[in-house]
């Protein structure tokens, strides 16, 4: 167990930033702290680093309680969102800083800097100053500088926030490769769920200072612990239906709700891939007009409007879309294959349910 947080809370004055958070990170793991801004994820990262002190609880790094250990002695590498490169120092001096401070021998420093320059593809830039570098180069210098003193943990605060979209994608892939090569325990903070899903071994999801769920990307996507996670990770249709006569109904759409009291309100969520769409109007139970198609690449997102004005989002492949000859403005039929009741009395989410409607012969591939 590389890092362990036990009952960690943090208050800034009266404001509670983090509430009783518990989680641990294994050796060599790459963990993403995900959540909307103000969720407390950066505060958690800074507490691990020692840049903030927890109001309550204990932090352990490699079994050692580090609450009273100063930032300098925690042996962590921290990469700031702004990179925080030393403006008055060259690339080489930036990377060497931690080693100089730790009084490494000159020859060792030179060797380590040369090694990192090589590893990070910064050859030829040693004498440049931070303002003479591109965003991607700056970030690599920042990570190289943090890794130079061989920290036991690498902490990154919004590592891809400050670069443009194209480089961001490349840097994500690079971070995974780097982590694979160096195998150093890494925790990074992000507000971008796609980024967290793509990069992390496990994701810790925060909202309003609370830990909502911890799990592999697949787990949090397929088995969200609560409505917040379900809505935050991936796209979800959420409908608020009213129960009447054993059926929860919103406009045209009905869900079975046996055992529920009449008049109860249920929040029902389903992912776009669970919505099956067909150009054959008699095939599926509901009808809608295809209002807008978003081209996301290989996948398309469809926005459909029911006669009552209700909007449902679906997802299908480009091939399927072309095969069915769909286009904006066309009438389609659809069905909801899987859904969840989001808001129920129990704290945890109800399991995913299959629609009770008779399954027509499947058409094409379902996403």
């Amino acid at each position, binding site marked *: 167990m590389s890092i362990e947080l036990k009952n960690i809370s943090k208050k800034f004055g009266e404001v509670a930033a983090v509430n009783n958070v518990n989680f641990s990170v294994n050796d060599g793991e790459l963990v993403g702290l995900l959540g909307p801004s103000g969720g407390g994820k950066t505060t958690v990262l800074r507490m691990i680093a020692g840049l903030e002190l927890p109001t309550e609880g204990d932090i352990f790094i490699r079994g050692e309680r580090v609450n009273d250990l100063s930032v300098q002695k925690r042996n962590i590498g921290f990469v700031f969102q702004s990179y925080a490169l030393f403006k008055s120092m060259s690339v080489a001096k930036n990377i060497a800083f931690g080693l100089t401070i730790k009084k490494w021998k000159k020859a060792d420093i030179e060797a380590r800097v040369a090694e990192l320059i090589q590893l990070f593809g910064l050859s030829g830039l040693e004498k440049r100053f931070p303002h*003479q570098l591109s965003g*991607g180069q700056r970030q690599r210098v920042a990570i190289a500088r943090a890794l130079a003193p061989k920290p036991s943990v690498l902490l990154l605060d919004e590592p891809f926030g400050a670069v443009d979209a194209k480089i961001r994608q490349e840097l994500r892939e690079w971070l995974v490769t780097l982590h694979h090569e160096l195998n150093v325990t890494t925790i990074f903070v992000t507000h971008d769920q796609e980024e967290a899903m793509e990069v992390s071994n496990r994701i810790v999801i925060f909202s309003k200072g609370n830990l909502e769920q911890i799990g592999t990307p697949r787990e949090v996507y397929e088995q969200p612990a609560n409505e917040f996670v379900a809505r935050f990770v991936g796209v979800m249709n959420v409908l608020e239906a009213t129960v009447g006569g054993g059926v929860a109904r919103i406009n045209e759409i009905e869900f079975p709700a046996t055992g529920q009291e009449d008049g109860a309100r249920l929040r029902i969520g389903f992912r776009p891939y669970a919505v099956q769409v067909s150009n054959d109007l008699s095939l599926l139970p509901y009808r809608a007009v295809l209002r807008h198609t978003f081209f996301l690449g290989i996948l398309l997102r469809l926005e459909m409007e029911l006669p009552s004005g209700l909007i449902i989002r679906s997802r299908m492949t480009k091939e399927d879309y072309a095969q069915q000859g769909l286009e904006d403005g066309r009438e389609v039929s659809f069905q909801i294959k899987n859904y969840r009741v989001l808001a129920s009395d129990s704290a945890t989410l109800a399991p995913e349910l299959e629609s009770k409607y008779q399954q027509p012969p499947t058409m094409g591939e379902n996403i």
Partner: protein
Amino acid sequence: MAGITKKQFTAGRTKSQRGAEESSLVKWTLISVAMIFCSVFLLLPLVNVFAQAFSKGWGVYWNALTNPDAWSAIKLTLLVAVFCVPLNVVFGLAAAWAIAKFEFRGKALLITLIDLPFSISPIVAGLMFVVLFGLQGYFGEWLRDHDFKIIFAVSGIILATVFITFPFVARELIPIMQATGTDQEQAALTLGANGWQTFWHVTLPSVKWGLIYGVILCNARAMGEYGAVRVVSGNIAGKTQTMPLRVESLNDGFQGAAAFAVASLLALLALVTLAFKTYLEWRQHREFELAQHAVISESGDTTFIAKGKGE
């Protein structure tokens, strides 16, 4: 077709450029007004100072400067600067650091207090010290009993000058430190640096230019201060008379050439200071230009990513 598009594009651009620029009439009128104003009110008097200083020949000029009282005034002025500038650097750094990097109660009050010497008349500042430390002042008797002399003494002059030059360094540093934030310092901490190492290797280099600039301004003002010093010093020739005070008393005694001789020396000090400031600005500008023109090679990115993808 392509040709037409290009033409339209170029035409649009020329137009927009013209839209952003003033007509040459406005431009030259503004430049002329500024130049004429500077010549009449700044350059002409400055030239006149030197002309008047030498109006009665080298001999008079030389005597005016080598006179023991003049020499004493020069030494005193330099002594005051030697005391004030380091005090200001220490205070300025501490105040700017506190204001830029911490949140605390009374921060607004501290900022206002730093500006006080700018907004208060130097004469009033001098009088405040007389009221505090003069013989009839609050601490006057105590000071006399313990044989401390502040009013009509060198210590009073230094005190008054420190008060007057209080804001220079701090005012230069606060915006720079606020803009820099604390990220670099925090990064240094995570890399194992202690407070002193962080200050020496990270904070100080990042405010270098602002600090030098503040020191120059502070020095210029410390040597040139008249009002506050006049009130607390008693203006005793050969003892508590600084250069600006000497200029004034010579002028009052109808020794115009001698007054201008000392004045020319003060003006010269000011010009040297300005020249140094200009040189620093030029250097800073050049550093910036170099940085701008440096080819930002993306080669690092591509080779790296290629490598990353290959694995």
